[in-house]
């Protein structure tokens, strides 16, 4: 009980220290509000009219989760297809590195061209950024299964599809879950980036758009609120995936 209270106390103290340091820097350097708002000012900007911020956060969270889901399913399928034969693995796997290597900012205009402004392009951006870790962890997990179990399935006359579904994929679950956790964090980054370029302003403006709008109007306090909320969305998406994966993994615990 005492250890638990201490465990909670630590992060709280750290947050308090960070806020104090923030105020100290502002006061010491005598920074204007549009350069660095005070912690209190940021809180006031949020509490004054929280609704658009919360709606924006909800928008962004939805896009991030959707993009993550597409990356999760697509990544596992692509990873499985790649693992189906050595030849395909050697020839196609390097190609998937493109997802990792091409800077998102460089292809985001293309996404706008293909999907138009709005959610589809944002979701695509989130999916593209987060798919590679899923592919890589799927390929690694599928390749690392116990050859003894492979032999068992061969002896029992299992076909390739049955072996994939009943042996290879379940064996790869712990590895895939690791990839999914990384992807969850990246999906939020991809979402905010996508919103910078493809988001639309208005009633339901997502966080990325709120950041750019507030910046143009020198409302730096509103930028801070949006950024903090974006971090919150990232935590929430990651938390959902972490909890879901822990439930899924109970069967795999030894």
């Amino acid at each position, binding site marked *: 009980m005492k250890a638990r209270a201490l465990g909670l106390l630590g992060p709280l103290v750290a947050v308090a220290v960070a806020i104090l340091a923030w105020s100290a820097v502002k006061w010491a350097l005598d920074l204007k509000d549009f350069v660095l708002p005070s912690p209190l000012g940021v809180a006031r900007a949020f509490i004054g009219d929280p609704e658009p911020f919360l709606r924006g956060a909800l928008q962004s969270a939805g896009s991030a989760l959707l993009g993550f889901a597409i990356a999760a399913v697509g990544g596992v399928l692509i990873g499985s297809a790649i693992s189906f034969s050595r030849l395909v693995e050697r020839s196609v796997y390097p190609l998937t590195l493109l997802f990792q290597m091409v800077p998102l900012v460089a292809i985001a205009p293309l996404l706008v061209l293909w999907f138009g402004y709005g959610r589809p392009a944002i979701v695509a951006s989130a999916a593209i950024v987060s798919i590679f870790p899923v592919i890589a962890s799927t390929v690694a997990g599928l390749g690392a299964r*116990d050859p*003894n*179990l492979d*032999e*068992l*399935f*061969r*002896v*029992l*006359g*299992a076909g390739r599809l*049955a072996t994939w579904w*009943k*042996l290879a994929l*379940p064996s790869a*679950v712990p590895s895939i879950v690791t990839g999914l956790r990384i992807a969850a964090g990246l999906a939020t980054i991809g979402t905010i980036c996508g919103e910078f370029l493809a988001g639309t302003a208005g009633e339901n403006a997502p966080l990325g758009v709120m950041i750019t709008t507030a910046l143009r109007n020198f409302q730096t306090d509103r930028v801070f609120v949006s950024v903090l909320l974006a971090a919150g969305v990232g935590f929430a998406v990651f938390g959902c995936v972490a909890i879901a994966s822990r439930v899924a993994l109970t*069967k*795999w*615990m*030894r």
Partner: protein
Amino acid sequence: MPSATDAPHLALRDASRSFGSVRAVERVSLAFMRGSFTALVGPSGCGKTTILRLLGGLDAPDSGSCDRGAGGVLSTGFLFQEPRLLAWRTLRENVALPLELAGVGAADRLARADEALRLVRLADAGSRFPHQLSGGMKMRASLARAIIARPSLLLLDEPFGALDEVTRHELDIELRALWERERFTAILVTHSLPEAAFLAERMVVFSPRPARVVADLATPAGARDARFWTDDALGTCVRAGSEAMLRAIEEARR
């Protein structure tokens, strides 16, 4: 039901098998009667497992032949050195796997899995996971899986070698009882002469690599209960087997 015990239904004829420059099996001829229990004994690394794989159709001889059942394909169950259970499945689902891969419906195969678990005295453990069981229990579940499809041939590759002595004797007694009731053809690979004499009706002793038959002995008749372990007849049989093996080892050294 297999009834004709006079005709061999499995035979190696003059079979040889090499791996690269290593000759594992040299001109071995062996025939197995329907419903018989044979133990293949020899020094470790002598090629016993290769012979078992040839008999099971997992491998083919370089020269000579392996005759698996007159015209038809023999239904074969395997029991490996390790339990080879799927960690993410309950015992019941593990045991039902051969039927599942053969397309048997869920209700039917799970009922038969419960029946098979009862045969190996694991009736209460069907809903537990492999990691919750002792090594002996895992091996029992593996045995249940090997016999669930009612194979006419059961191949056992040092199945209890990794268990402690008491558990091993216990499982030997149960395996023997199971065979007496079901009367499948059983072929056991082991490096333990007492275990071979206890379980099987016939004991084939091999030389060091490449495997040649150096003795083909009938084991003592009689019930296999705990008292049998201290029986004089068992001792005589084991002595005959070990003398043949030691002679072969000495010849190989010369």
